């Protein structure tokens, strides 16, 4: 049984259907990239997996380690090893990162039957894990994300990931807004955290992050569905060709044959790539 099993997931918010039947399996050791244009539903998928409550599941299921993930509260998911790195990490003025992380790490450890981290071990862990993403140790002592630059916030998310050691790590557009150096640092951090028990779901708009984090699978999400799944070469293709050739009512080739090429002026022939 895969660690994460998403079946025919339909999600709506206020009468608008955002996900229209998503299937995805991810197992320990695998890195899945989900790419898609704005509004395709990829960030919604991340938020639903992390436990945001404003979305309505109208159909389908999500199982995590055999359990019904959608039945679990957000904190329970985190305690069971699900982690999401936020696209827009929230600033928490007045909440010291040290205290927050200590509680967070220990809540997760307690739920997993591990011993609470003592002060010395905690400090040691903070030092090690912040090094992974080259995060200034001073930032680990400030209020959470307050006054951090965009890049620092994203690095901080990966730092939290490293501290919490999840089994399923979801990265929601962690690369957006990063310059090339920051991108490399984040990618290096993630690569060091890859391990045979941990699954990554990396949601991204651009292929460039995948130059540094090599995915096992690439999923193209269009209009609330996974229109195509392939290996890392699909990412390159999507970068070159965009998503237009995949859009339509879920079947890419029909759209393509209706003259999509003339619409976007693409010269390449869509047929061979569009085989589902």
């Amino acid at each position: 049984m895969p660690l994460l099993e998403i079946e025919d997931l339909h999600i709506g918010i206020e009468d608008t259907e955002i996900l229209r039947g998503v299937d995805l399996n991810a197992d320990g050791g695998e890195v899945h990239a989900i790419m898609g244009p704005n509004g395709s539903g990829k960030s919604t998928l991340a938020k639903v997996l992390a436990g945001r409550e404003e979305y309505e599941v109208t159909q389908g299921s999500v199982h995590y380690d055999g359990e019904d993930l959608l039945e679990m509260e957000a904190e329970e998911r985190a305690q069971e090893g699900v982690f999401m790195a936020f696209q827009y990490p929230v600033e928490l003025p007045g909440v010291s990162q040290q205290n927050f992380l200590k509680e967070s790490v220990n809540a997760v450890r307690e739920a997993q039957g591990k011993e609470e981290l003592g002060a010395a071990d905690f400090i040691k862990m903070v030092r090690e894990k912040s090094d992974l993403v080259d995060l200034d140790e001073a930032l680990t002592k400030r209020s959470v994300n307050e006054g951090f630059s965009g890049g620092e916030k994203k690095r901080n998310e990966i730092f939290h990931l490293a501290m919490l050691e999840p089994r399923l790590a979801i990265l929601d557009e962690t690369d957006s807004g990063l310059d090339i150096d920051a991108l490399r640092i984040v990618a290096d951090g993630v690569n060091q955290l890859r391990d045979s028990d941990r699954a990554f779901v990396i949601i991204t708009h651009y292929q460039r992050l995948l130059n540094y984090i090599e995915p096992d699978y690439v999923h193209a999400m269009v209009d609330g569905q996974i229109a195509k799944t392939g290996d890392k070469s699909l990412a390159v293709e999507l970068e070159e060709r965009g998503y237009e050739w995949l859009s339509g009512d879920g079947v890419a080739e029909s759209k393509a044959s209706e003259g999509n090429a003339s619409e976007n002026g693409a010269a390449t022939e869509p047929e061979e790539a569009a085989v589902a």
Partner: protein
Amino acid sequence: MPATVQEELSTEDRFLQAFEGLSDEAKNGTVEAVQGRRRRAIEQFEALGFPTNQLEAYKYTNVAKALRHEYRIAPAEAAPQASTEEVEALLLPDLDAHVVVTVGGRYSEERSDVGALPNGAFVGSFAEGANAHPDVFDAHYGQYADFESEAGDPEQSAMTALNAAFAQDGLFLYVPEDVALDKPVYALHLPSAGDEPLFAQPRHLFVIEENAEARLIEMRRAPEQREHAPGSFTNAVREAYVGAHGHFDHYIVQDEGAGASQHTTFDAYHETESVFDTLTVTLSGDLVRNNLTITPAGEFCESHLNGLYLGSGEMHVDNRTIVEHAAPDCVSNQLYKGILEDDATGVFNGRVHVHRGSQRINAYQSNKNIVLERSAQIYSKPELEIYADDVECSHGSTTGELDEDAIFYLRSRGIPAERARAMLLGAFARDVVESVRSEPLAAWLTDEVGARYGAGQALGVGS
């Protein structure tokens, strides 16, 4: 003699009658500065009456209405007592201080432990201080909380006048020129035990002379075995003078339980290059109204006024602040924060008044509120009134619910929802708590806020 209030009389008439019944110490005690004003004070009170919500400054807080029930208008009892244990239980851990205690508005010699003071300084009873330092009283008493001054806000002077008519005891703090108190003063105010609701009128005077320094922590507490009878009311007046180059930190915590109402007036006046720092924390009470007026009267003054109010149940808490920038080149900084739940009501009305010619003033004012339930209410009205053109002033007010995104962020890191809420509320209050320069008080406040919202003690300050 104590006059028992009779329902047939109007609220104001009860006080006029009680005034005519004053005798002995209540009438003739203390010094000329105090005695000599009583008659004029009661006359002014008679003319003004209790503030009602017809007055703009009392729009949301009807004091007159809150006083229509029965209570005893009390001249301070001779010597109400509290036990050593009661006092000890309410000291702040790790605070080494000159301890003064009042019970029922009366200074308690037995329970106070002032200890050694620097030369010439006085920490103790208002009544005794008046006799020991009549010249200081002549110079300062009634000068700042001045019910007679035309410049004073007539809307605010009724309660001051009433207090001046009955003023008898309270605290007196006197730090002469060039003297610094190296320990803070810790003032514990306890109600007198009993089932009868009282109307008490403590009076406090703090004089910090030129280049002198002091810190005062006032705690109004009502421990379980000594709760205020429902309907109790305190009309307190404080005056502070800080001389040139002086420094005075003043912190007050109001936590007297759901049966106790209070109206406080605090007028502070400070001279050239002095610093005045005050914090008002309101943790419980029935109706609480605080009038704070600060006048930085010389150049290069620094005034800090902060507040924190945590409203629950039926509590009504109203902070009105006025900063009178009467001199140029001064800085004032104001931060009031409130958390309101249940049916509590919060009011903030802050006014910064930059006088003509007071150039290069930096004045900041901010009021922030979190309303936890729709049944709780907040009225916030920041005001700037500026008659100088080279100033930097800002004001702002925000009211909102707890940030759902922030709660989700914490939950998605494994922290349970309730705990996440508590962490965020503690964090919200944190910058006000951190403005406190006394570490034992800051630690105590952190724990109080944490305990209130179920956070335990994990919300460390400063880390």
